[in-house]
């Protein structure tokens, strides 16, 4: 069958929506990277920058909602177009939460500045952080390129992060027992581990939305 592809304006609007969600994802990724940098080598300017980025992503999410409502009202999409728009809305809100969690990590930096973090818990956090960073990148790519294989891989990555979180929890608890004076800032370390684990959950959810968008099935 010859395809004529009318509705050129509609197709362009969908492409712009996809670009916008990608931009939100990239902004969240940069905020995340900066938050970790601020965490490991405290820099107040960087902390402020992460908080601003988080607010920017929140604004972008409102814009995304307006854009999607406008497309739905004007174009009345169905089938794969409707599923894409629904997924874009949900993915946008996952990126918004990632930005918020990055901001939380950056704020922790203010509380632990100058403290000497024990090596083992720090290594656990660093290891988790590396996997989480790659998960954010993969979640962007899975959604933007509608890539099922990358989307499915996010489940495995999330399992790794969950395992590392359990290890970090044990190591942080042990450090608390070893050095009671360190409890104050070790609690913040525990928060960071928790924030990382939550970001990984969000990335996994983006993978799930991508699979649902493509197959209409719960992963």
């Amino acid at each position, binding site marked *: *069958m*010859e*395809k*004529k*592809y*009318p*509705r050129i304006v*509609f197709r362009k609007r969908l492409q712009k929506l996809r670009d916008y969600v990608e931009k939100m994802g990239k902004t969240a990724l940069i905020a995340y990277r900066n938050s970790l940098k601020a965490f490991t080598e405290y820099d107040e300017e960087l902390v402020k920058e992460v908080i601003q980025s988080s607010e920017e992503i929140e604004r972008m999410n409102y814009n995304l909602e307006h854009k999607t409502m406008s497309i739905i009202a004007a174009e*009345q*999409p*169905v*089938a*794969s*177009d*409707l*599923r894409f728009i629904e997924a874009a809305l949900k993915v946008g809100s996952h990126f918004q939460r990632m930005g918020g969690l990055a901001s939380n990590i950056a704020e922790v930096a203010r509380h632990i500045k100058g403290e000497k973090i024990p090596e083992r818990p720090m290594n656990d956090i660093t290891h988790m952080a590396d996997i989480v960073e790659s998960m954010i990148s993969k979640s962007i790519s899975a959604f933007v390129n509608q890539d099922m294989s990358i989307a499915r891989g996010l489940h495995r990555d999330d399992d790794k992060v969950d395992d590392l979180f359990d290890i970090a929890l044990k190591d942080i608890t042990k450090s608390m027992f070893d050095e009671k004076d360190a409890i104050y800032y070790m609690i913040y370390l525990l928060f960071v581990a928790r924030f990382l684990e939550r970001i990984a959950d969000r990335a996994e959810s983006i993978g799930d939305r991508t699979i649902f968008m493509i197959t*209409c099935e719960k992963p």
Partner: protein
Amino acid sequence: MDRIEVQDLNVYFDDLHVLKDVNLNIKNNMVTALIGPSGCGKSTFIRTLNRMNDLIDTFHKTGTVLLDEEDIYDPKVDVVDLRKRVGMVFQKPNPFPKSIFDNVAYGLQIHGITDKRMLKEKVEESLKAAALWDEVKNKLDKSAMGLSGGQQQRLCIARTIAVEPEVILMDEPCSALDPISTTKIEDLIHRLKRDYTIIIVTHNMQQATRVSKCTAFFLNGEIIESGSTDKIFIEPCDQRTEDYITGRFG
């Protein structure tokens, strides 16, 4: 329960093969929408269901159309009686140039009802069922031609249901109407489905999703896909359905 069963239906006008191996079951007390690009055979299909195509000399068909398990093309079938059982509402409202009352009473009189009191009751009942009574009850003797397009279309629906059909065929009933009149007809369809089996041809995808429970997609005389309206408009199985409903071809 299936009210209509269409089996291996092929329709020709002379050598032109218009419907090809169509199989479709229409469920009782449910709205079924037929969608597809212009010229795909939707209207020919519904006109086959009340033998309106018989009026065209070049029409011939193979396959069977069962209404309540009886072949409507059986030579013993009385076509006038069939069209009473399977009523039709057309794209453009086509009231008779008579009074509002006479428009609705006409079909009843043809079918032998002459008692004035009974006629009055039936006309009122039909106009109420078509959600038109309140707007016309004080001017029943006025010409139907003075009604608005939306009112005329509801009058045609009242005229159709006056003779108590089992099935109502609607061929793009809202395409000539404004949005408010369209909403009224759609609300009416929702009410009528309790008592009637409705088949509606529509070019308006959103209307199909709003009013129907089942949808069949026609293309080049074939049914490409049929089933639950939700499934077809959210997760169609066939790429051609997807391409049509998302506007990738017209």
